[in-house]
């Protein structure tokens, strides 16, 4: 966060010069008028300059992009980074060749990058924004794959009557399995074990 104070003949002028110095637009800053300008008597005596305080707001999306750019630079991979930001989330889409390398086995590299970016961007901030890193629609494909897996395993549990324990997954992936089978007539799901090895279990009702 950068704060500067500026004088100007009018409030407007003081704000403009502050924005110029910060290289920011109006919606990227918070403005506080410290002293109003006054023209004085007949514009001659006792005129007072305006004083404003302009604070450049912290930009989560920009910080995220900076961090990821630095990482890819050191990894020697060329990636186009697109950032979308709202009040609660920063969505980052990566595009380039060899995205498989950045996804990793079952998305573990993508998840690691996402986790590190989230730590860096939210460090010491009052407001937390969720970082969502994706490439080539991987998240959605994985979600569909997990839904299919859940349905297939539910059938197996129903047929054999034996419970099935899945491999360890992160909370996000476990949630997909739970919600897919939430209303299943014959099986129930729960998780067991400790993070990061927590696993989903599917068993007969």
């Amino acid at each position, binding site marked *: 966060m950068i704060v500067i104070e500026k004088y100007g003949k009018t409030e407007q002028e003081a704000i403009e010069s502050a924005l110029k110095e910060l290289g920011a637009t109006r919606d990227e800053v918070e403005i506080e008028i410290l002293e109003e300008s006054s023209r004085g008597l007949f514009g001659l005596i006792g005129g007072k300059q305006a004083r404003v305080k302009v604070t450049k707001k912290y930009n989560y999306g920009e910080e995220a992009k900076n961090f990821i750019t*630095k*990482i890819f630079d050191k*990894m020697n*991979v060329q990636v186009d980074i697109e950032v979308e930001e709202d009040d609660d989330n920063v969505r980052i889409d990566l595009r380039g060749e060899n995205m498989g*390398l950045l996804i990793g086995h079952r998305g573990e*590299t993508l998840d690691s990058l996402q986790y*590190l970016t989230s730590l860096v961007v939210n*460090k010491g901030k009052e407001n937390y924004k969720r970082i969502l890193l994706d490439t080539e629609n991987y998240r959605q494909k994985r979600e569909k794959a997990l839904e299919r897996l859940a349905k297939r395993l539910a059938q197996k549990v129903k047929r054999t009557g034996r419970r099935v324990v899945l491999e360890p997954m992160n909370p996000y992936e476990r949630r997909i399995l739970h919600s897919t089978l939430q209303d299943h007539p014959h099986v129930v799901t729960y998780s067991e074990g400790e993070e*990061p090895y927590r696993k989903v279990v599917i068993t007969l009702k």
Partner: protein
Amino acid sequence: MGELVKVIAQALVDSPEEVQVKEIEGEHSVIIELKVAPDDMGKVIGKQGRIAKAIRTVVKAAATKEQKRVVVEII
């Protein structure tokens, strides 16, 4: 590869100027020693080593390109 570890560590800690990285190059593997200020240890290790694990995963991905085994040690 050491540069990559440094960039990540510096972004995570409170005292980036105290981040030190040493690369020990072997024939088939590289050992990267990461040293941070004592107060910053938690920032690069995390609960149950979760942050350290994420750093290692990213470094491992970068290393597959160079076909070398990389070990990241936090000391």
